[in-house]
């Protein structure tokens, strides 16, 4: 590696560190201002994290209107509970927890028909047949099982990661994961629907 390359690499690395620090500082400032009731500061946080919240909500809900409702509810809850956020963990982690809890309670509240199967959305995906079958499988699962399996197999999170992000105990997630996987095994072996 030449001297110039090393120098360029070091400069770029320092720039990145400075950018990350700046973004963290501004995030802390936005949060502090929002905690004092500044709506515009909260709006900035919404703009910063809306993509992540949409992506996560979209994991559990297929219809665009449901995803937007969940995202809106997530931000409203975050606004109401902003006092409970202490800057010990990144704001994004706290918001992820709020979003997951919103998704979970909504999944449990809604009927499977409202959340599990959306053939129109599935049919418009890259592989319509596989998508429709996945939606059918999901519909056969109880909301709690669906929630855990979407995090385990969809997001690819480990039991420990799920526990950490939801604020649940590891043993609680283990029990839920065990039950959900067992039920999925039953469905996959039972052949109650067409082959995937």
């Amino acid at each position, binding site marked *: 590696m030449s001297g110039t390359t090393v120098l360029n690499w070091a400069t770029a690395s320092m720039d990145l560190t400075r950018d990350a620090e700046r973004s963290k500082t501004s995030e802390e400032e936005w949060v502090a201002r929002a905690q004092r009731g500044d709506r515009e500061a909260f709006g900035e946080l919404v703009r910063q994290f809306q*993509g992540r919240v949409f992506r996560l909500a979209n*994991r559990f809900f297929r219809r665009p209107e449901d995803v937007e409702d969940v995202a809106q509810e997530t931000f409203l809850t975050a606004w109401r509970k902003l006092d409970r956020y202490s800057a010990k963990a990144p704001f994004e982690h706290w918001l992820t927890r709020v979003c997951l809890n919103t998704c979970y309670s909504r999944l449990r509240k809604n009927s499977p028909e409202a959340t599990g199967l959306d053939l129109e959305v599935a049919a418009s995906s890259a592989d319509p047949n596989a998508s429709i079958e996945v939606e059918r499988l999901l519909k056969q699962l109880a909301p709690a099982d669906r929630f855990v399996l979407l995090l385990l197999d969809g997001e690819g999170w480990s039991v420990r990661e799920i526990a950490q992000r939801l604020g649940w105990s590891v043993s609680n997630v283990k029990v839920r994961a065990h039950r959900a996987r067992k039920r999925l095994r039953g469905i996959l072996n039972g052949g109650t629907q067409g082959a995937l």
Partner: protein
Amino acid sequence: MRCNQLQKRLQEAAPLSADERAHLRDCARCAAFVQRWESWRQGLERRGSPLRPDAGFAARVVASLPPRTSPVEWAALRLLPAGAALVLVLTGWCVLRGLTPSAVMGQVSTQDSLTWVLDDGGGGS
């Protein structure tokens, strides 16, 4: 039982032993399960294209925000039901005893309290 154990390990993405791999080759049920399981996993990964918020989403959220309640106001609001319950209990107690509010207040007049204290003090050990 063996099929169940093997399928469980597949779901947990645990590495399979040589024995388990041999079972997988011979067992039609497990082979079918692997196929369905893989389709399920890949189907979830490819599940639709992620939705993106439209340009006006943040503005709509900000417009719908209720006024923020300060922690002190929250504490007061949370104490409100407890205060109301206390008033109800006291009222119920008075009604049960057949006491009017003025009678209750009269019972604890300063003079009575003083007399009670003096009497008690005089007759004590």
